[in-house]
């Protein structure tokens, strides 16, 4: 990691992850009334949780797992299967699974 001096950048990510987790826990405990409104099948609060989770995941993968500093080809090899297969799996389960309600 020649492009990094010292360890401040690690601790910066640590504080970001800690802050996001703290926000999630506080929201999870108080569950603000205005966030419980429904939007496309689930509450706004759940969208907030999912977005915060993806932000945390991005920091872990990009910085801790070092993908940000890898070659473009490796980034593509790692991200492409995930970004195609996981949404595909979710899509299949949600649509094909709808027969469960009939």
């Amino acid at each position, binding site marked *: *990691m020649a492009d*990094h001096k010292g*360890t401040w950048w*690690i*601790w910066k*990510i*640590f504080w970001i*992850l*800690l802050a996001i*987790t703290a926000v*999630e*826990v506080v929201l*999870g*405990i108080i569950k603000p009334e205005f966030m419980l409104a429904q939007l496309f099948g*689930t509450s706004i609060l*759940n969208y907030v*949780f*999912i977005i*915060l*989770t993806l932000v*945390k*995941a991005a920091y*872990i*993968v990009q*910085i*801790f*797992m*070092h993908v940000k500093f*890898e*070659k473009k*080809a*490796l980034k593509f*090899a*790692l991200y492409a*299967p*995930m970004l195609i*297969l*996981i949404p595909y*799996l*979710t899509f299949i*389960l*949600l649509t094909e*699974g709808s027969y*469960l*309600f009939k």
Partner: protein
Amino acid sequence: MASSADMTHEEHSWGGASRPLGARYGKLMMWFFLLSDALTFSGFLTAYGLMRFKFESTWPIAENVFTHFPGLEGDQPLLYVALMTFILIMSSVTMVLAVNAGEKMQRSKVTTWMLLTIIGGLIFVGSQAWEWYHFIMGDTGAVENTHTEIMHVYNAEGERLSFSQVVHGMEHGHASNHGDKFTKEEVLHALKGNSELYLKEPGKAGVTYDHATSVQILEEGNVVQGANMHRNEYGRKQFANFFFFITGFHGFHVFSGVVINFVIFYNVLLGTYERRGHYRMVEKVGLYWHFVDLVWVFVFTFFYLV
């Protein structure tokens, strides 16, 4: 026939001299293993989502299930899992610090950070064992009707009662059964004797039954305390099954991560990587350890928060 220049080029490429991904073999293999593992976990989580969506109205609300904190009385929803999440993030940070020190060939720093990472992992696995123990032992107990649907006992104030409170009364009973087992007859007798008590299904839209129907449900049904793969006191059977499989599979990853970390730590102590001239092994187990943390971030959201 290819010219000699082409041949040389071909031999050159096939010999591995060209490195289009710019990463070494071991690291690439770790990454491809992690990709397949990520798909396994997404399979688990999407299947969980499907079942939960199907039984949305009576699916147990996680913060009503995981309410205890070691050493504290009463309801502490989410706090303990939040602490576990913090511990795992912290041990991920010490792991990056170990990798970072390894790149600078600072053996003593690698030793310290690896040791802290292992301790963090052990605390996490221990916490998970504690949570499993409480999940399996049970908290309040529940009534199961003839359709294997789970219901909890409530009083006129809308408080959820434990079997201990139902049988021994509010003054003498404990808010949690603490491992005490109650028979169907004991609970039925107490339920018949107190017309204020009634049954209610778990979840956001669980149905409430009046006292007479509640007595009838218990007469035909049974009591459930704790959890196993067949029935659990929290709600749908699938809830406990997914809890065991997802947190269990993740816990197994943490456990094996701790073992692998320990092997690497031991080699750092022996000076293996110092002699080898690089600490790339630390980087490889680091990837695995961050992945375990990454998975927990998703499990925390989809199992405990959403």
